[in-house]
């Protein structure tokens, strides 16, 4: 009961806020009922639309790369006979790091003038790359950090699944003359569908909520090139102090995430049925 109350009350409060304008007078909150105004703000908010698009691109590209890399690593590590534990431990280090440390570390690495990446690039006689300052590259640079950060998470889920595959099925396929490529695409991956679905689901949800990497590396810039929904929400709530509209934006983001997952699930079911 307490758990339900703790879940339901904040959501009801959020809904209440989303149709209100909240200000302060004489150090007290003053609520006024303004649903139409908040909805109009949402319709007029072109930054939110850009942020939603960037978030979609970020989620789709980052999660796709993470799943491909995570799966490849899981199959490779499962196939080695020695140092499996050591490799697994080394691979999961990025998930253990605090986001602030990750942001600071990559910001230094991406630095135009002092970063290690540009030192490597210029050592080949090339021009330094504007990793975080170019509108074309900035989102891609953040995706690289996300892939580095979260591929180990995907790897862990998929590695456990590969290790749990029935050995006799794989052996039988080998005896029947299946080559490695056929083994992976026709036996292993189909058998791993439930684990893949879990990995994709978790990662999509987390990718939609991305905040720390963007906040620390670019703050949504340059321009709106890396503006994502969580960051926009943060600015509306905390920098602009628009709590009512911020609440409506939160609900819109929750709805967008559910819609995206629903579409993804339908697409996956359609592919699976074929």
């Amino acid at each position, binding site marked *: 009961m307490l758990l339900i109350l703790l879940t339901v009350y904040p959501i009801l409060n959020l809904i209440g806020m989303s149709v209100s304008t909240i200000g302060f007078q004489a150090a007290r909150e003053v609520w006024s009922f303004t649903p139409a105004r908040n909805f109009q703000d949402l319709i007029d908010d072109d930054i939110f639309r850009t942020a939603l698009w960037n978030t979609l691109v970020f989620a789709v590209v980052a999660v796709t790369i993470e799943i491909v890399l995570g799966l490849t690593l899981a199959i490779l590590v499962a196939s080695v006979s020695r140092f499996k534990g050591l490799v697994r431990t080394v691979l999961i280090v990025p998930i253990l790091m605090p986001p602030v440390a990750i942001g600071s570390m990559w910001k230094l690495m991406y630095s*135009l003038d002092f970063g290690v990446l540009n030192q490597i690039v210029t050592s080949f006689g090339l021009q330094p790359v504007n990793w975080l300052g170019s509108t074309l590259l900035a989102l891609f640079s953040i995706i690289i950090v996300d892939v580095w950060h979260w591929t180990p998470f995907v790897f862990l889920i998929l590695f456990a699944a590969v290790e749990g595959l029935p050995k006799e099925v794989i052996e039988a396929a080998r005896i029947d003359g299946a080559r490695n490529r056929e083994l992976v695409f026709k036996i292993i991956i189909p058998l791993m569908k439930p684990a893949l679905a879990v990995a994709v689901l978790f990662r999509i949800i987390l990718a939609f909520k991305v905040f720390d990497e963007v906040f620390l590396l670019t*703050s949504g810039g*340059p321009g709106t090139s890396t503006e994502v929904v969580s960051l926009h929400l943060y*600015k509306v709530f905390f920098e*602009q102090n628009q709590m009512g509209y911020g609440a409506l934006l939160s609900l819109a983001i929750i709805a967008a995430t559910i819609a995206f997952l629903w579409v993804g699930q339908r697409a996956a079911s359609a592919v699976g049925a074929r």
Partner: protein
Amino acid sequence: MKRYDLVPGLLGAAAGAIFAASPAVAADSFMDVGKQAPITILINASPWYNGFESVVNLYEEQTGNKVNLDVTPFPGMLEKGRSAVRDPSKSPYDLININSTWTIEFYKGGFLDPMQDVDPNFQVPKEVLTLGDAGCWDDAKQFRTCKTGKLMGYAPNGNVELFYYRKDVFDQKGLKVPVTFDDVLANCKVLQDPPKSYGYLQRGEKGDSIYYDWMAYMLSYGAQDVKDAENGDFTVTINSPQAKAALDKYIEIGHKCGPANAGTLGQGDLIQLIQTGKGMQAQGVVAAFPNFDNPQKSAVVGKIYASVLPRATADGHPGAAIGSWVFGIPKNASAEGKKGAIAFSKWFLTYKAQYAYAEGGGIPVRGDVFDSDLKKQDKFRWMQAYEDEIPYGKQVFGYAESAQVTNALGLRLNQALIGELTSAQALNKAAEDFYEIFQKSGRKTGKIAPLPE
């Protein structure tokens, strides 16, 4: 202390008491504020923090009163301040430092006690710089003004931007300190050699960084955000031809004289580029200066000099936007905490304390400290430039919607700098943003003709 140590200690104390009683020395001693309850101050970890910490240590030493500091990075200051003053029970802070851009939210919301409501005898000494009346609030006008408003706080630091340059390189190449932005461009032709050296550094990072640095151009070119905020006319003028000229010049200098990442350059980057010897000319906050002379961090110790910011025309004026902070007392602080905060404030604003503050690396707020012997010391070679520039200082966005307005402006300017929008498009969009904000808050607002896109 060992027993025999007590004798010289007591003799010293007695001698000190006798000297303190004599008028000449008493005038030169620190203010006695009596025994106070411990206080907690919310303070930002900005470049001038070390100076503030040293003066707080001195206060504790001089008065025996305890001061706790909650040192917070800039991005966390607003939210910590808000949480404290909105706490229905009691504020954890007795004095909070608020960026002048955010002050209105606190004044208008009724979250701070006017200083003279806490202590009717509290006066800001006449030598203290008013810094564009950031610490006063007229609730009827909904505007920051000391003429008709109440004293809500005072500035612990008066930050303006100065022009910084590498004197050794200027001497070597026979360059002159620029008077106008065109002079900056001319110097820049000689100095720009990326990535080895950059001709002019200015912040371009989206948000507070870019809007604040662009103010140097905006104010110098005679552009304004709104027509007459003090008298209630919020007709948006940010897309005036003057503003466009200011933005075009800012972009031109950013592209021709800055690094390739001019659109993401923040304060930390700018200081780092100067410290590493890559920055030849720059505009930066006065509080950043001690970083250039810190031998542990800087490769250019003694080589960076300061001057007044460049201007639009030789006979014009520099655009000195004041980026100060304001110390205020939360309404929900305890009675003894408020009393302690007033005592600290009285002490902090004395000449002696401000002198010590400057020596520790802070930016004092008393004019007479700038006239002192400190100015002659090489360490304080920025003081003359500051003194020359401060008469032009202007507080901008002194109205309740400032957080939203600067947020919108910080984005649009950045979009123009990186080429996502043209300067005219960016300013027209900013004007639309401003207009909507003012309309929603019920201001008397309007628009001027948009710039041709």
